[in-house]
């Protein structure tokens, strides 16, 4: 018989933090709240995902009203320049940790708008994207699969888009400025 003696090993602060973070990850991946930024046609895939056909709520997901409350920024479809500017604004308003899920081929490579003067081609140049769901438009199973993928990534600590945004902030900012110019929008009706 081997006698096993329990010796408590004091955890360092980094280790405790890691433990807490893992616990937090469990909660975070089981309760993902969406902010739907319905920019394009892919938004039509969301009603079946939410209602009785696929029932997003059983995964703990649900729609939220404002970016402050939400965990996922769900970009559904193409992004024109004007929308992108507001999308970035919204993304920066969200609470951390925050994740981005992009639906459809437009945020990936521009899709059918790849040569438009008003639509950007690649969303991850401007904000970090954790999950792309390809397809024009992706069917609802694919959308749900994308969410499950995101949960997987959170579990394995790979959904680090928001950290990347902090680390490479200047790179993202430079990209935003080349494509959009400085954020300098005037509201002529209330000046």
């Amino acid at each position: 018989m081997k006698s096993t003696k329990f010796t408590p090993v004091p955890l360092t602060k980094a280790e405790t933090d890691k433990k807490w973070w893992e616990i937090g990850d469990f909660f975070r991946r089981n309760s993902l709240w969406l902010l739907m930024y319905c920019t394009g046609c892919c938004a039509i895939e969301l009603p079946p995902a939410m209602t009785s056909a696929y029932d997003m709520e059983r995964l703990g997901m649900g729609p939220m009203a404002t970016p402050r409350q939400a965990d996922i920024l769900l970009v559904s479809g193409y992004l024109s320049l004007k929308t992108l500017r507001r999308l970035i604004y919204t993304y920066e308003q969200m609470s951390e940790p925050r994740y981005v899920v992009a639906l459809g081929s437009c945020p990936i490579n521009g899709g059918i708008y790849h040569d438009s003067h008003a639509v950007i081609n690649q969303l991850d140049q401007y904000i970090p994207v954790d999950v792309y769901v390809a397809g024009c438009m992706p069917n609802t199973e694919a959308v749900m699969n994308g969410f499950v993928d995101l949960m997987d990534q959170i579990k394995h600590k790979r959904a680090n888009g928001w950290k990347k945004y902090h680390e490479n902030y200047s790179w993202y900012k430079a990209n935003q400025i080349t494509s959009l110019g400085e954020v300098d929008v005037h509201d002529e009706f209330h000046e």
Partner: protein
Amino acid sequence: MNSMNNIERVKEIVEKVAKVRKFEQIDKFQIAFEIEKNDVHQTLSALKLAGWKQLSYLSAIDWIETSKFELVYVLFNWDEALYIQIRAMIEREAAEMNSIISIFPGAKYYEREAHEFFGINFPGNPDYHKQLILENWDDIPPLRKDFDPSVYSDRKFPKREYSVDYSVKDPENKSFEKIKEREKRALSLRTGGQKK
């Protein structure tokens, strides 16, 4: 037919104030007049008096071969089912057209839009040069025919570069397994986790 009478009446009104270069009946409820640039204001005010009180739309067409812009004013009457298009050709170089906001104040925003997308100037409209839709535009107006959106897009927006060719025909491609796995997962999602 009542609308035929209407068309005749409109023709009379327009011909009284402007030299009609071309008349076209597009369908039963739409007619178009092509007139001189200088007659546009008179025609519009005459038609407004006759009941075509709403300026539905104002836009332009770029005829790059003949180096002209064609301005189109679409008028609408709330009492009679007849749209009228007034078309006028203006020069493409240093394009300019006097504003019609004294007749239709709502034209203010259409003129701004036309300026933004075609570069037509509208003297008489105090803020035609202000930005309306495009934010911080830094090229030639985008709806001109000599503007190449593809080049602009390539210059402005980073493109995704594909290093691997994800050809579906490639038997060596590992991505099929991934796809199969995904399909399995999708099946389980469809059935609510129950195995069939």
